């Protein structure tokens, strides 16, 4: 029987693979999918760690909304040729090829280092709260802030990429 810890470790491994795929991949579109996959795994981890509110935000904003913004932006940019992609990929592997090894070494080191547990953990209250209550009664200003961030994202895409498609530079 697989314990809770094993499942979480497995999820963390999947997340690491997704992250590496995002960073090292050749295509921007695939990188976006990798990022969405990373967010999806983080969402599952948050649910498993009894943080449904954070999980809902992660799922709706990072996995959903941000992916849509990225895909729309990519659709407005000029795609690279296969030759350019291969060249860029070689260059990237040369510069960042050490990243997977570094990540594995750090992960192993962190697994074996025991951090002294002297943090005062507050009583967990979030599961008792309704998601809607937290979002609309307790964190309204944060919600408004998120809306403004989305507006900036939309404005940014319009301002920075609209003319690029027209001029194709």
């Amino acid at each position, binding site marked *: 029987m697989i314990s809770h810890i094993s499942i979480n470790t497995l999820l963390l491994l999947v997340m690491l693979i997704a992250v590496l795929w995002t960073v090292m991949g050749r295509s921007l579109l695939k990188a976006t999918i990798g990022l969405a996959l990373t967010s999806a795994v983080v969402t599952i981890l948050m649910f498993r760690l009894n943080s449904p509110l954070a999980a809902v935000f992660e799922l709706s904003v990072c996995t959903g909304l941000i992916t849509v913004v990225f895909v729309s932006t990519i659709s407005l940019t000029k795609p690279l040729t296969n030759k350019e992609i291969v060249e860029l990929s070689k260059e990237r592997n040369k510069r960042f090829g050490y990243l997977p090894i570094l990540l594995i070494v750090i992960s192993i080191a962190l697994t074996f280092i025991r951090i002294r547990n002297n943090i005062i953990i507050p009583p967990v209250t979030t599961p008792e709260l309704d998601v809607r209550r937290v979002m609309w009664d307790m964190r309204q200003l944060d919600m408004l*802030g998120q809306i403004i*961030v989305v507006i900036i994202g939309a404005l940014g895409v319009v301002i920075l990429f609209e003319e690029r498609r027209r001029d194709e530079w």
Partner: protein
Amino acid sequence: MLSLLILVPLIGIVILNLSARAPARRLAFWFALLIFISQILLAACRHPVLWNVEMKQIDTFFKVSLSMDQISFIMLLCIGIVSIASLLVARHTIYDEKELFKFVNLLIITSIGMNGIVLVKDIFTLYIFLEITALASFVLIALEKDRNAIEGSFKYLILSAIATIMLLTSIALLFMVSGSTSFEAIRQALNLANNNIILFAIGLFVCGLAIKGGLVPFHAWVPDAYSSAPAAVSVLLGGIVTKTVGIYTLIRLLIAVFGFDPSLKTILLALGALSIVFGALAAIGQNDMKRMLAYSSISQVGYIILGFGCGTFLGIAGAIFHIFNHSIFKSLLFVNSAAVETRLGTTDMNKMGGLSSKMPITGTTSVIGMLSAAGVPPLAGFWSKLMIIVALWQSGSKTYSFIAIMASVITLAYLLIMQRKVFFGKLSIENENIDEARIGISTASIMLAVIIIGSGVFFPLVFNKFIAPIQELIIR
């Protein structure tokens, strides 16, 4: 009432964008001007009747800790003034109506972000407004979409992302310790618990804010971002954005949440001195006017941190007053740079000279800005620097006091070099036909110069009305 400072501009943007036709685009400029003037008037008069107006429905909705104090008034005033200067410069430097409309939208959003930073009393909400301001700034820097602008914006984006990771990690740790994200709850929890995790969290937060504020050694993005941004954006960034996002937030959190630790004071004093000296020395070697002003900003931010690092009332008051003064004189110098750039098409100081005969308003106001930046009496910059130096001396940091005085001399030197290269000397033949800057830019220059002279000459009044009340916050 406080929530209106965020809601009114936001609703305005939404309405204007619903119908982004020509009349709405033209209206956007006047709408922005109106909200910034209203903000200045409200912050300057500080009448309790105005600030305590109850708006039941809205206030019920926004029950998340928004509040005002003496420092908030000063910051709101700075945000309003610099935003107006930036808006006026944009009107005469961004020629396409659609581009101007986009700029105005982003300017209003940036001001919403900064107002939020000044008003919130919750560390996570503070983080959200920091991100709003930073995101709008990335787009603003890249507005002209040329290679340098994109590069400057990208550098800012990457370093800001690193700062964001630090801030979020710190917030998570503080939440673990206190079980809440409100300033008050965290402060109480920190008083009870004192361990290495807390120190680590505070250290991360301070480093994150130092990156956002452009302090040495976290300053790498500042010169590129300031110099590659459009003229109006440089005014905004150099004048107020980095000061609110990095420096004000640092001051606010140390006063209201983290408190002054002796080791933290030492770090702040060292960071401040390093920024002052490095910024001033780097500024001397620059040939680009905007780049020189960017390094000058790093140096001036060092003064603010040095004053704040004293931890005494005089030091903190001097730091807050220097934030105000720096906002005004640095905005003025960037407005002057915009005026020159619009007429000559370059900011390379080697291609300038003798411009004050052709641009008397720009030349004269630039001398006022320069003298205030160098701390020459009786201009406003002199008083804030004096307060900081006296505070350093009184608190026993005589070496830092000496560094501050010497750096002031270097400041005067590089600003005199700028004046000589740009406004004095012989006018070159190719610049003989240039005129004074357009009326909007000249108006912004005159407005800022008048504020510098006024707040310097009437310093006792300014001190009693705006600076002295800060003492209540520090004692509390």
